């Protein structure tokens, strides 16, 4: 049972986002810039970073929904998403993304774990400063989102089909636009 009272029927982060629209707005904007807006890293690559960090933080809702969104971007390849979570070093992804996932894993344990060598390796595989920046911030942001979702004991039904269905719309429309389905909208002045 959630620690505080949310609207009935909203799963995972949707409960607290709907409970507090003032904080939902920047949270959804942040997710859009990091995961959905155009970027030299594809949306699929960025969603894999989010999924991997959420897996490390053991957040069922976040790793399942972002894993499903990643799969939509990756032509439905759910096995690739599973492989990245279990053993990304041997998954069928670029060397650059592997180097960025190493950095993301370090950030998950604490920012000071990222070493100059980690960053130099990523650079030698072609990662730009902005890609390294975004990887650090995606990993850091999911250390927030995961804690937000689990820290309030939100409702996280264990039914992957439900997440698959939702992922199609979020992958297409992004986070802020999709949030209009479940967050009360402020009246325009």
């Amino acid at each position, binding site marked *: 049972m959630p620690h505080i009272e949310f609207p009935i029927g909203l799963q995972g982060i949707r409960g607290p986002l709907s409970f507090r629209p003032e904080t939902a707005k*920047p*949270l959804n904007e942040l997710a859009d810039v990091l995961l959905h807006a155009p970027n030299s890293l594809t949306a699929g690559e960025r969603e894999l970073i989010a999924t991997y960090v959420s897996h490390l*933080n053991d957040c069922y809702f976040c790793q399942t929904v972002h894993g499903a969104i990643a799969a939509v971007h990756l032509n439905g390849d759910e096995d690739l998403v599973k492989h990245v979570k279990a053993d990304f070093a041997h998954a069928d992804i670029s060397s650059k993304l592997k180097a960025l996932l190493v950095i993301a894993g370090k950030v998950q344990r604490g*920012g000071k774990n990222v070493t100059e060598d980690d*960053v130099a390796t990523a650079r030698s595989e072609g990662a730009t400063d902005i890609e390294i920046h975004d990887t650090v*911030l995606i990993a850091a942001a999911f250390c927030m989102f995961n804690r*937000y979702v689990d*820290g309030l004991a939100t409702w996280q039904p264990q039914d992957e089909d439900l997440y698959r269905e939702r992922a199609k719309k979020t992958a297409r429309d992004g986070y802020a636009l999709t949030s209009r389905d479940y967050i009360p909208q402020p009246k325009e002045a």
Partner: protein
Amino acid sequence: MPHIQLPPELPGISAAMAFRKETAKPLRELAHVLLHESNSLTSGERELIATYVSFLNGCQFCQASHGAAAACHLGSSEIVRQVKASPGTAPISPKLKSLLVIAAQVQRGGKNVTAEDVATAGTVGATDLEIHDTVLIAAAFCMYNRYVDGLATIQPEADEAYTEMGRHLAQHGYIQSSQNQR
């Protein structure tokens, strides 16, 4: 030295935010709503939660800058020091003590927050909104701290270096950079 090429004249998160204005906007807005906008928890109380979590995460820039903002709101840097050293015996309300317990659980991982932690906060007067905001402040600082340290930003060691920044944050909040006003 920072891991990527950040503006060299800016400390801590200010440098990362100047590097990537698109993410700076929601990051600033989130901090402003959580710490500065009117709330049944005072800004001083919310800055103490931010400072305490940043201290637990070992992030010098965040604990010193938010500690300075808290001290400015509370008129005392001694309370900030006591909260970091021993929140259970610091001269703060039982409600804030119970919220700091929840914040510390979130810092270690969201699943650590128990129904008992939340019930205790409720019995000393915490509302659902205050519990929500405590969880999100603690979670958000697990992000800000990792962002600041994960890029190896420049972080002055002396707490005194943060006094002016803290005053600016306490007075103006987080929408504008504290570094533009110099």
